[in-house]
């Protein structure tokens, strides 16, 4: 009895006396963003269990696509698990909600969300936040570039009636204006709407050369299906938010011909051999498909993998300066993250700096078209 009591006291006094590195992971494995969060959660299981000889503990919590739960999760990570770094969350609102907690406790956080607002501008709070997913602006530029190459003049936009659709519209409208592209219609719909006929009729009345659908996952099928049904003949663009197999499954022949920017990982096998991302992208695709079956890999899991890649490169650097579990280690890790140069990952090449906490360039995106029910690289 005495012995047990002593052991309990000992362990509670030095909860992480073995200096393992604790990584708190909060992803949206349920709720509206579940189709993004589930592959991310699956990917965490594939991340290295030791880095530079140190054991890594991943503590994975689900935030149900709810910013309140995400905040609670990161508070728990900091207070109870004494984590050295946080990975998450899946969506922009959740990541923004977690940011103040990360900054307050001086814990580096690697977000998996798309919106640039998570890391831009790098101020006192965002100094602790990094992210692995391409900024929307990266992708919007790629779309506009493709449109202007094809000599299009008018374009209509239909997107989610939430932060995703709104964010995309802002980015897209900004870039489109620079390239003399006229946005002739701007419509919104809900993720779980059963009909978008009204919006589509309005878009058709504006007679655009192309339509951009600002949606993520399978809900982005509906506008394209309705456009085809009502006889639209122009080009339809989608965003990289649809790059998973469920979109192809649900969309089937209705989404044939859609053009979209994707992370190179999605079309990894089709990349030319000299593409710098090909090797690291195939590495992840191979591991994920070995664990979850052929064709199961999706773009979103890649962001979680890339968070692991960043840790793999920075933890050894930080370990030289301090012991895990200390504020010094977290600070060293943050500084090391800012110093990452030319690090190939599944989605691109990281070049982080104190001004850029995302770190991807144009190598992190390619244009693809949906052909015969699969993604095909546009050369």
């Amino acid at each position, binding site marked *: 009895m005495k012995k047990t009591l002593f052991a309990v006291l000992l362990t509670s006094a030095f909860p992480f006396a073995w200096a393992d590195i604790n990584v708190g992971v909060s992803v949206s494995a349920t709720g509206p963003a579940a189709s993004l969060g589930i592959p991310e959660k699956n990917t965490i299981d594939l991340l290295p269990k030791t880095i530079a000889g140190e054991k890594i503990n991943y503590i994975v919590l689900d935030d149900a696509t709810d910013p309140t739960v995400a905040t609670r999760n990161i508070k728990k990570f900091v207070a109870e698990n004494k984590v050295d770094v946080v990975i998450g969350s899946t969506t922009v609102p959740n990541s923004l909600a977690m940011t103040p907690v990360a900054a307050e406790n001086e814990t580096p956080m690697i977000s998996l969300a798309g919106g640039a607002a998570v890391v831009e501008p790098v101020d006192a709070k965002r100094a602790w936040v990094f992210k692995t997913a391409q900024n929307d602006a990266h992708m919007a530029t790629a779309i506009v570039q493709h449109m202007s190459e094809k000599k299009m003049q008018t374009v209509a936009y239909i997107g989610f009636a939430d932060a995703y659709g709104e964010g995309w519209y802002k980015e897209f409208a900004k870039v489109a204006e620079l390239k003399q592209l006229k946005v002739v219609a701007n419509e919104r719909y809900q993720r779980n709407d059963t*009909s978008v006929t009204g919006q589509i009729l309005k878009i058709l009345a504006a007679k655009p050369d192309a339509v951009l659908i600002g949606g993520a996952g399978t809900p982005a099928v509906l506008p394209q299906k309705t456009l085809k049904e009502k006889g639209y003949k122009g080009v339809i663009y989608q965003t990289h938010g649809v790059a998973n197999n469920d979109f192809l499954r649900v969309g089937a022949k209705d989404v044939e011909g859609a053009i979209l920017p994707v992370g190179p990982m999605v079309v990894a096998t089709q990349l030319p051999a000299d593409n710098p991302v090909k090797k690291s992208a195939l590495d992840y695709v191979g591991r994920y498909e070995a664990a979850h079956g052929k064709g199961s890999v999706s773009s979103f899991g890649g962001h979680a993998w890339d968070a692991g890649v960043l840790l793999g490169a920075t933890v050894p650097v930080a370990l030289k300066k301090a012991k895990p579990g200390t504020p010094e280690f977290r600070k060293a890790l943050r500084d090391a993250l800012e110093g990452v140069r030319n690090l190939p990952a599944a989605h691109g090449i990281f070049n982080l700096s104190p001004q850029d906490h995302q770190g991807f360039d144009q190598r992190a995106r390619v244009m693809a078209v949906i052909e015969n029910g699969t993604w095909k690289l546009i050369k």
Partner: protein
Amino acid sequence: MDLQVFLLLGQDGIINGAIYALLALALVLVFAVTRVIFIPQGEFVAYGALTLAALQAGKIPGTIWLLVAMGVLTTLIEGARLAKARQLRRLPIFALTHIGLPVAGATLLWLVPPTNLPLAAMIVISMLIVVPLGPMLYRVAFQPLASAPVLVLLIVAVAVHLAMIGLGLLFFGAEGSRTSPFTEISFDIADAPVQGQTLLVVLSSAVLIAALYLFFERTLYGKALRATAMNRVGARLMGISASVAGRLTFTLAAAIGVFSGVLVAPITTIYYDSGFLIGLKGFVGAIIGGLVSYPVAALGALLVGLLESYSSFWASAFKEVIVFTLIIPVLLWRSLNARHIESDEE
């Protein structure tokens, strides 16, 4: 906005309205007979659609396991009641229908994967899997509370709704599904293209509504349900069992829900949580009917469909706001006009 757009929007509104109308009728029915505001009504839409989609994809739908589990649970509860009443000899038959049949069905699905069945057969199988969940749900969740206040029943309904959403995510995954359309034909009416599928939705809804009318007017069970809705105590005195009425109501509500799901599944992508919003719009229709009048509820639901369609054209970002704001003037008008009935006092 020219005439063609006007017609197309009207067509779209009527299709959605037809589905909402079916759900509104089910909601009014359940409320009238059992005083339950049946929030999980929408879940039956999603379960029906996704079960059919799973069958079409050649997978065994998770709902069959739910059916088996619910069968076991129902049998346990019923067994406890029978033991108390010293009528255990009735248990074997109950167990046979509530556990035996689902297990037999699951085994059959396991042995013969339903890939190449005709569409009609798949629809029947989906109905057979999901509809029995309705009465079982009533037996497990609502029958023990049959005389509780409306508020308690509402809270239980919300709990059932949340449980069913969670189970839906477990069974069908986060992503949605769409089933193959019943028919590919399309033709023009007044220069507006009409899909055969959409016409089918409107026709089936109309037929179902007519069938419901005949059921309530012409059959003994229908009349019994109406009697229970009008006066529960009086109906009981006339020998109509409240629990049988409840189970029958839930069977009907579940059947209407699943059927609506099967109808919309080819038109739009259905997710595990899509049902709630569809059900909620049916609920707005039911509210317009004051949760008592079937024809007004159906018309109200049609109005919701049309309003949704036209507002999506003019102000797509505010569509839901406009649809749900409709409740406020309707409630005001009803509370000023309708005579107040204390339904809780018995």
